[in-house]
């Protein structure tokens, strides 16, 4: 459904040139929740913005449902990290959620209904007439999520959406996201620096190296659904996945294949093959087209 092909993005030119993303390629299937994780400054946000059409890549392509992305595509929704600046303070919560609908829906009544049902889905029915600054941080981010849901997007992009809230709220919001995905099946791409979050929420985790941003590995998360903050994180499989992602993020060698195969169906064949004990070199693009047995573009 979403194909990213050899995406490269360079800032500035000449001597001061900065390679933010280097030949990133991956696909996302319909209804999948893919998380992108990496250290700070590794170009995650740049990657997301290129996919969203907010930025033009220096080379490479983004293909959404068979169409090349050259500007912001239709039926795309984005949730930013800084909710206090992304929501418009001069609009009420309801008006904020309904705002993107103005382009497609002329009737105010229909827009308000869609807004209110989105707010109900995130549990904020009472907040509709209030202003964003009257709500707590977690609630504001819920409003941003409701705004994204109200558009009924085909692709939902989230740029470190839970980075500015406290741990408790973050867990609630992660579960909210999973619930939304289960109910509506929206294809989602979540960028995060939180490794736990990437494993907990994702169907697949894409690990990015830092400067330049390259895809180091893709890991299928074979944990049972529905996920639970306590019981899922208690599983052995979770901690091994978590550890694996950690190693990859830190640039350490991956665990040897024998150890990986021991655990209960946790890894599968999707982690990139690497000789143990060495830092993985930049892989070729060819193994990328088939990441999991069930994936299709």
């Amino acid at each position, binding site marked *: 459904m979403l194909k990213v092909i050899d995406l490269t993005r*360079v*800032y*500035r*030119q000449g001597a*001061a040139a900065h390679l933010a993303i280097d030949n990133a390629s991956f696909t996302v299937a319909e209804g999948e929740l893919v998380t992108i994780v990496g250290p700070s400054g590794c170009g995650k946000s740049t990657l997301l913005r290129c996919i969203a059409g907010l*930025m*033009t890549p220096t080379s490479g392509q983004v293909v959404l449902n068979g169409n090349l992305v050259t500007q912001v595509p239709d039926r795309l929704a984005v949730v930013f990290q800084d909710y206090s600046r992304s929501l418009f303070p001069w609009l009420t919560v309801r008006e904020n959620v309904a705002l993107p609908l103005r382009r497609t829906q002329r009737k105010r009544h229909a827009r308000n209904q869609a807004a209110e049902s989105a707010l109900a889905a995130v549990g904020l029915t009472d907040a509709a007439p209030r202003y964003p600054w009257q709500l707590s941080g977690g609630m504001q981010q819920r409003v941003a999520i409701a705004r994204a849901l109200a558009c009924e997007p085909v692709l939902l992009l989230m740029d470190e959406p839970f980075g500015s809230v406290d741990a408790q709220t973050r867990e609630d919001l992660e579960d909210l996201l999973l619930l939304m995905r289960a109910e509506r099946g929206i294809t989602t791409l979540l960028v995060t620096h939180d490794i736990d979050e990437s494993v907990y929420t994702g169907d697949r985790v894409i690990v990015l190296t830092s400067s330049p941003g390259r895809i180091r590995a893709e890991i299928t998360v074979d944990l049972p659904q529905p996920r639970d903050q306590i019981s899922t994180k208690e599983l052995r499989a979770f901690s091994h996945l978590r550890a694996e992602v950690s190693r990859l993020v830190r640039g350490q060698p991956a665990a040897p294949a024998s150890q990986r195969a021991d655990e209960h169906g946790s890894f599968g064949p999707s982690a990139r093959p690497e000789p143990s004990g060495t830092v993985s070199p930049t892989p070729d693009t060819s193994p990328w087209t088939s990441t999991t047995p069930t994936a299709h573009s």
Partner: protein
Amino acid sequence: MSRDLKPFGSARVVRWAQGLAGIAAFLLAAESLGLVIPQTVLPRASTVLVQVVRLAGNTRFLADAGATLEAWAAGMLLTVLVAVPAGLVLGSLPGVRFATRALTEFLRPVPAVSLILLVTLLLGSGLRMTVTLIVYGGSWPVLYNTIAGLDGVDPVALQTMRAFGFGRLAVIRHVSLPSSAPFIATGIRIASSIALILDIGAGYLTGRLNGPGIGAFIADVSSGTGDVPLILAATVWVGFLGLALNALLLQAERRLLPWHRASLGSAHERVPLPAAAAGAA
């Protein structure tokens, strides 16, 4: 959307070039407009420019400009000597500070230009009248800003000084004054704009009777049908004067208060409008 980062030096050159290009474009547009519109409605830009240059050699204009500057300088000096200490004193006594601010709320809306005639009646004409007017008009923004500056002084700093046994006067000298200095400086620049307005306004209103001054010059030039290009030329010079005086005060500010420039932006250094005292000072 990658943008090349230009090094600092060439960015300034670009800005200067842009500005000059803008001025040139404006003059060109004005000139071409003047070709279409009759001279009685709008004089040609070239005519005005010629007058601007000629004024620089006009002895009477230069004398008038000198007189205006003299009144400005005297008025500003007196204003600072009167209003800053008054502000420091009034602002340090809490009850009085409140009363003063309340009063300025009511007195500020009265335009100082409306007092020109009163002062003329009281003091006749001449330098004394103009300077009195300037001191009245300029004292309000300086007073208001001094008090506002004192309001912004860090109470912890004050308490620290007091704890060390410093008396009221010493506290003012070492903490309150330096801390409020940027606000006072802005107030002074506002007062400068007001001073120029009052000087030229009073000069224009009372004419040569009041002695030399750019206002009187404009009044002379306006008599009869009025020489519009010359009036415009004098206005242009007055604009330069305003810019120059503001720049002068800014330089003084930078010399005396070198530390605060980093915290305030470039908007701080723009020529303040006289009414700025009424709004966001």
